[in-house]
Each structure stands twice: as C-alpha cells, then as structure tokens.
C-alpha cells in the first residue's frame, strides 16, 4: 500500500511547479499513505487532504491545521503548474478547461477554478486560474471481488443490471471500474467468460482517458466513449461497438433514465452508479424512482466509508431483498 501511495505521488509530481514539488517530496511516507488531494490556492497556504481532513504544509513537508508557517502558493507556482498540466498548450485542452478538470497520466485528476469566460450565455473556458486541486486516483484491483457472486448471473453468463449506490468519496467509481475490469478479463474461477464492455465516460473519471488512452487497467475488451453525454453515448456505443455490457458513472438526469430503459430492452447489461446514502435518499432522487419501481435494476450495491472507502454495506435484489449481508 505504501509503495502504491508513493508511486501515485511520483506520478503527479512532474506536473507541479518545482518549488512546491520540493515541499511535497519532503512529506513523510506516513502522510503520503493517506494523501487524497493536493490543493494549490493563489496567495494562500499549500494544503493537502488526508483521510477527508485538510491540513496545511510547511516548507519542510510537515502538516499542521494552522495557517501560520505554511508554504504560501505564489502566482508563479500556479502559472508554472498550469503550464505543466496542460503541456504549455492551453489550446490543446480547451474542452478540459471548459469542463473544469483534466486528467493526468495514471488517472489522477486536476480540478480547476478561476474566472469563467462566457460566450452566448454558456461557459467557454476558464481564465486566471486561482485554484488547482490534484486528486489522487488509486485503483484498488480486487475491490469488487466480494461482489462478484452477487452481481453476476453465472447461469446466463451476464452481469445483472446493477446500480452502485454510495455517498460521495465512498468508492463507487473505483468499484465500478474494478467490476468492469473483472468482466473484461473474464473470471475463470467462476467460469464466467470475458465480455465486451462499452464505457460512456462523461466525467472522464471511470476510464480516465488522456488523449484517448485509458489511464486505468480496464482489461482488454473495453471501448471507451470519452467526454460524451451519457444518454447519447449509450445509444451510440450500442450501435457502433455492439457491447455486451455498458458501464457509465453517476446517472441522474431524465435523459440518462430514458437511455437506460432503452439499453435494458436490447439485451445489454447495464452497470452504473448514483449518489445516495440510503434507500430513502435513492427513492427521492427525481427520475430514478421510476427505474426502481419498474424493477429495471436487478442488483443494488450500497457502499459507505464506514470501514474506509469502498465498504460494502450490502447487495439488494429488484424486490429490495438483501442478498448479502454487510461486511
């Protein structure tokens, strides 16, 4: 685990200005283990998020909840970092700047905030970047293994239509990604064949493509439609790539629900996720209630952070009956 954390940090360091890089390199390994985010805010202290809590970093890489003594991020630091993450080519990342984030090699993401430039009432791009948030992506291979007997229909050799439900930062995207990886490789010990998976990655988080290449291991049978709206993307993938399984992240809009209706009636298995922390919250989500009442999803996987990100609270079937107990 410690090696994974150090590797993740090493992957983002080349994209950070030298002076901040030197501070981050001084961080003790015990901190690196828990590192979730590195935040650069103009003329404000350099911050890191460790286990959901934000701390400031001093020049020696030490953490403190206090602002005094913390390293202050300068205009030069921020400008250099923006150039490094965009390879000095803002024009090549126009869409990413419009979306407010870009993906780094290794699947890590950089969130951007600054002055919005509008054109015809809609966001054209961001200028004068004032905040950067490096979010460290840690793939957890094998995290979906406990789910496999419950979300795979072994008799039909297809996954059930599955909805992964979790509050933010509880590992639903990581879980879905690992599930896709298992399905794309095939699972010999369960005699489950490898299937073709189509991914509609609207938020560029599931496959984390950088210039067309998925930055996470998703297995050999995955086709990714990057930055594409989910509803259009699912229909497009179905026509163009004939997937056996379609995976997409964070459904919620009316168009997504309609597209899922279409998918489940074409013989494709749908794996997706949604933000909610309980059945009550889930049923209160507009548009989703219709899917739940119609028993479209055959499996509901609830996750939480109770024992760390990715804690499986249980798997329920379409009748809302628990098919596995919490770990």
């Amino acid at each position: 685990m410690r090696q994974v954390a150090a590797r993740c940090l090493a992957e983002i360091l080349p994209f950070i200005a030298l002076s901040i890089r030197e501070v981050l390199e001084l961080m003790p390994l015990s901190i690196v283990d828990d590192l979730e985010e590195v935040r650069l805010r103009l003329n404000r202290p350099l911050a890191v998020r460790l286990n959901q809590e934000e701390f400031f970093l001093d020049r020696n890489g030490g953490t403190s909840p206090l602002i005094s003594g913390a390293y202050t991020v300068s205009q030069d630091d921020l400008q250099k970092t923006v150039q490094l993450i965009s390879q000095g080519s803002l024009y090549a990342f126009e869409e990413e700047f419009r979306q407010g984030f870009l993906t780094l090699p290794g699947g890590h993401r950089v969130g951007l905030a600054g002055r919005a430039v509008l054109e015809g009432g809609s966001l054209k791009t961001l200028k004068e970047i004032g905040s950067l948030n490096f979010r460290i992506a840690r793939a957890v291979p094998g995290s979906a293994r406990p789910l496999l007997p419950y979300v795979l229909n072994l008799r039909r050799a297809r996954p059930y239509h599955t909805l992964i439900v979790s509050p933010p930062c509880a590992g639903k995207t990581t879980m879905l990604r690992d599930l896709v990886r298992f399905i794309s490789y095939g699972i010999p010990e369960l005699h489950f064949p490898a299937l073709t998976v189509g991914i509609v990655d609207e938020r560029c988080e599931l496959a984390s493509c950088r210039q067309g290449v998925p930055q996470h291991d998703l297995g050999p049978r995955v086709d990714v439609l990057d930055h594409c709206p989910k509803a259009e993307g699912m229909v497009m993938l179905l026509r163009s790539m004939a997937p056996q399984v379609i995976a997409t992240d964070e459904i919620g809009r009316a168009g997504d629900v309609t597209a899922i209706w279409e998918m489940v009636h074409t013989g494709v298995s749908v794996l997706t996720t949604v933000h909610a922390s309980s059945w009550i919250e889930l049923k209160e989500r507009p548009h989703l209630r219709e899917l739940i009442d119609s028993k479209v999803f055959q499996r509901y996987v609830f996750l939480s952070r109770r024992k760390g990100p990715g804690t499986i609270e249980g798997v329920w079937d379409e009748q809302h009956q628990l098919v596995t107990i919490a770990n």
Partner: protein
Amino acid sequence: MWTALGACLVIGSLGLTGIKAASLYSQRSNELRSLQDALQMLDTEILYAATPLPEALKKIGQGRGNSVTKIFSKAGELFGEGQGFTVAEAWEKALQDNWNSSALIQDDYAILCAFGKLLGVSDREEQHKNIALTSMHLRQEEEKARRSQEKNTRLWQYGGFLVGISIVLLLL
C-alpha cells in the same frame, strides 16, 4: 617576395571579411523567411491538429535544416524535459542558445521574445492571432532586410578588397 605575400594576405583577409559581412545580409533575410515558414507550420499544428506544444515544436525543428528552426526544437526539448521552465522561459533560452549562430538582429529578438511570452497560454483563436501578428512583424523586417541587402551586399563584397588594396598602397 615577402612584401607581395603580406600584401596578398592583407587584401585577401579584408576581402573575405567583406564577403562574410555581405553574406550576413542575405543570411538574415533567409532566416526571417524560414521563421515565417516555421510559424505557418506551427499555426497549422495548433489551429487544426491542436498538437501539444512540445511535440509541435520538436516536429518543426526536425522538419527543416535551417539553423533558426533549431530554436523551435530546442524550446520544445527544454519545456518537455520538466526542468521547471515555463514555455516563455524555454523559448527565450532557446533563442539565446541559438543566437550566435544566426544573423538575426536585436529587433528580430524583441519580436520573437514577445511571441514566446504568449505562446501556449491561450485558446486556439488567440494563438492564431499571436502567430499572425508575429509573422506580419517578421515579414516587415524581412522586407527591410532585403532592401538593406540590395543596398549593402555589393558595398561590402567589393569594399573589403578595396580597403585591403588601399592599406597595401599606403604601406608600400
């Protein structure tokens, strides 16, 4: 015999100096032309292919043999190495590194420096405008350089020898 040899040496060396000075005029005009061609290529890479700068700059530097296009490849290398240079810094350093081998003058340096400061820091439209403006300035400099070349080349070519001959005649 020694006198004749010395006279030949003086005339020859001053003559060659004149020829060299004359060739700098045409070299500068050619380099300004090459810079405009390279900028045109960069414009295509940015506007139509959205190629990231390190790759685009290296591609331009590899494409042509002219010494000034090395500025592009050197800037691409310096920035791509992750040594902490911004694009503007990498561009300026590449300019300085290749300056002595070129015939460009201070006015050209100022134009290219201003171009480097805006390189890569905006969207495609703005980059296109920056390239177009720089090309226009370089074209104006090229026209001036050509006029100056026509006026001065012959003067330097023959002048060197004539000065050499005059010195020899004075000394004899």
